[in-house]
């Protein structure tokens, strides 16, 4: 166990390890991002990244094949892309298309290229692609009235039912959760070159705070949504089509608001973070119900 005490002067909102688990990025209300080197039980502060004008809500590491790249989003309405070269960090791009707080930022599966998904309190999500010849015009979608709290890519998957010898059709999707209590699934249409609403999932009685699409590529897709209403719903879909089945992780309400959901990399353990400062772990049993898999001791 590694513990980094007093990493920031104000509240930390996100902490993410890179692909190899060697570097940790943290972000805070103190408007900074810190990058730590983690090796076994030891850690070392590598750099403090300054540039945002408000609290920084989330950070995400790009796939290492693109270099050492980090994206961050803030209450200042901006997404900043940071790059490390020869031990020095610099800002390589600023994405400023949102008129309110950007609440989540996530890199797309690396197969799609260098592409970001950002969700904002202005009710929109934006998708921006960084190409060798520069940045493409962002795709901006009206997603949730009164604000989008979180957006998450689906893992790369393909449409079912391709004829023999035919190239299966890529299914590029993401999920959003908003202040309208809804979870929405969006799908890329290569002809119109934008994303269209595929499904609207209603089940929460208050703001959806976070959505997480399980990264495992199975026949069944899983989305976890957590809410201000103190519940977590796992939505599942067979063979990437048809209706989404709703399963509540726990019949009773959780003791406090649920803020974050995270799937383990193989997709089978769900970690839920609540306002009571507890992190609980959940797994699906053979009957399709969710059962506790432990609590993280802090």
């Amino acid at each position, binding site marked *: 166990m590694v*513990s980094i005490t007093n990493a920031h002067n104000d509240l930390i909102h996100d902490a993410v390890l890179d692909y190899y688990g060697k570097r940790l990025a943290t972000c805070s209300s103190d408007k900074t991002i810190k990058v730590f080197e983690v090796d076994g039980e030891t850690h070392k502060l590598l750099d403090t990244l300054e540039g945002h004008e408000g609290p920084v809500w989330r950070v995400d590491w790009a796939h290492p094949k693109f270099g050492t790249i980090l994206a961050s989003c803030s209450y200042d309405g901006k997404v900043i892309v940071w790059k490390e070269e020869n031990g020095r960090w610099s800002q390589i791009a600023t994405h400023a298309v949102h008129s309110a707080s950007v609440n989540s930022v996530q890199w797309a599966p690396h197969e799609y290229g260098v592409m970001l998904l950002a969700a904002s309190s202005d009710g929109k999500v934006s998708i921006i692609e960084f190409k060798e010849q520069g940045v493409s015009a962002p795709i901006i979608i009206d997603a949730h009235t009164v604000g989008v709290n979180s957006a998450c890519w689906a893992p790369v998957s393909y449409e079912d039912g391709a004829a023999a010898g035919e190239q299966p059709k890529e299914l590029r999707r993401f999920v959003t959760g908003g202040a309208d209590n809804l979870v929405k699934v969006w799908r890329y249409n290569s002809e119109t070159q934008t994303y269209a609403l595929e499904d609207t999932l209603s089940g929460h009685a208050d703001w959806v705070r976070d959505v997480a699409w399980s990264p495992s590529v199975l026949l069944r897709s899983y989305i976890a949504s957590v809410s201000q209403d103190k519940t977590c719903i796992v939505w599942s879909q067979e063979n990437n089509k048809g209706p989404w089945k709703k399963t509540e992780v726990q019949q009773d309400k959780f003791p406090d608001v649920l*803020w974050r959901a995270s799937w383990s990399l193989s997709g089978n353990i769900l970690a839920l*973070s609540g306002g009571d400062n507890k992190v609980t772990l959940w797994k699906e049993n053979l009957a399709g119900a969710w059962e506790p898999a432990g609590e993280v001791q802090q």
Partner: protein
Amino acid sequence: MVKLAEYKRTATFAWSHDRTPVLVTGTAAGTVDADFSSDSTLELWSLLAAAPDTPLCSLTTDARFNDLDWSHDGKFIAGAMDSGAVEIFGTNNERSALHSFAKHSKHSAAATTVRFNPKQANLLLSGGSTQGEIFIWDTTKCVAGAAAASYSPVLPGNAKTALDEIKSLAWNNAMPQVFASAGNTTYASIWDLKAKREVLHLDYTSPDNGARAQFSVVEWHPSSSTKVATASGNDADPIVAVWDLREANKPLQVLRGAHSKGIMSLDWCAHDDALMLTAGRDNSVMLWNPDDGQLLSQFPARSNWCFKAQFAPECPDIFAAASFDGRVQVQTLQNIETSLDAEQSASKSAESETDFWNNVSTDDGAVETQKPTVSRLQAPAWYGTANPAANWAFGGKLVSIMPDGRSVAISKPVIQGMEPNEMLGD
């Protein structure tokens, strides 16, 4: 998305206490329409409606409105009518119809303001335009039943000195028997219904010019029961004074320097006591931090007095502001200049003179593209609350923020009944 909605009415309004709020508007008293009509309507609006510019439903009333308030349990909407009546309205569950439940003409002249009690949903305060009239109503008795027709409201007890027109009333958010009033006088009053009298006077003399502030608006702190804010409607010194009643001889904080004319409305955010909205006769709406007295944002000015600005109580990212410019606007607190705005203004300055004159008549969006001037970026409390924010990482590691909010732990939880899957990196 500065403006989520704009209703072309000169109307006062009230928000419902829902997470997805509904707005009720009532034709404002004291204004004259272009066609000299004296009609008055009460209308219900939803941001989520299929046709957001069309009310969900409406009701014609026989008098115009000075104020509206929605009870905290959602049951009733109270109107302070220009006729002197206090009228109680309600909606059906579908929000597709408005009804008038009761009308009591007890005020000797126009009713000026109404406020429901946040703790006891059935209690309603109303103020009148003469002789400091303040009434306390009980909706369990004055709305329906045999005795409703002959119902008489209760008086709050004795004032220390004779009051004039009541312009603002506010119930304490913790003590249901305590309220504050302000009007056309140089002081604000604190009342205790148990003591049956006015218990405190608040007054403020400007250190600059020796003038006494004319307190026209009062509002309580959302959680600290001894703190109250008063705003001055005086054009000479439009200040907000924040008081702790335990030391009522001088204010804790004075908010000044932003409004150039008298303040007509003040709202203290229920979900973040470090946010306050004011609006006034200088046609503008301001966002403040009442703790340190700093101005946070100034919203684009309207073309006439802005008489009411209020956060949606359960969705405080948005607020509504009503002005005598004939519009009720619903806006977001935050509206940052984006790179797309910059492109738009660049294309605008690049357009030829002919293009300009071609577009000018259709350019209704001039106000829409105006952004608030942000003096200080302060994230509201309902964003990014301290939380453990656990994230899984490669190798079955879990990164989580510690309860102190300032430290991070990386652990490798052992999952009951599951062998670590080395292949998948668990």
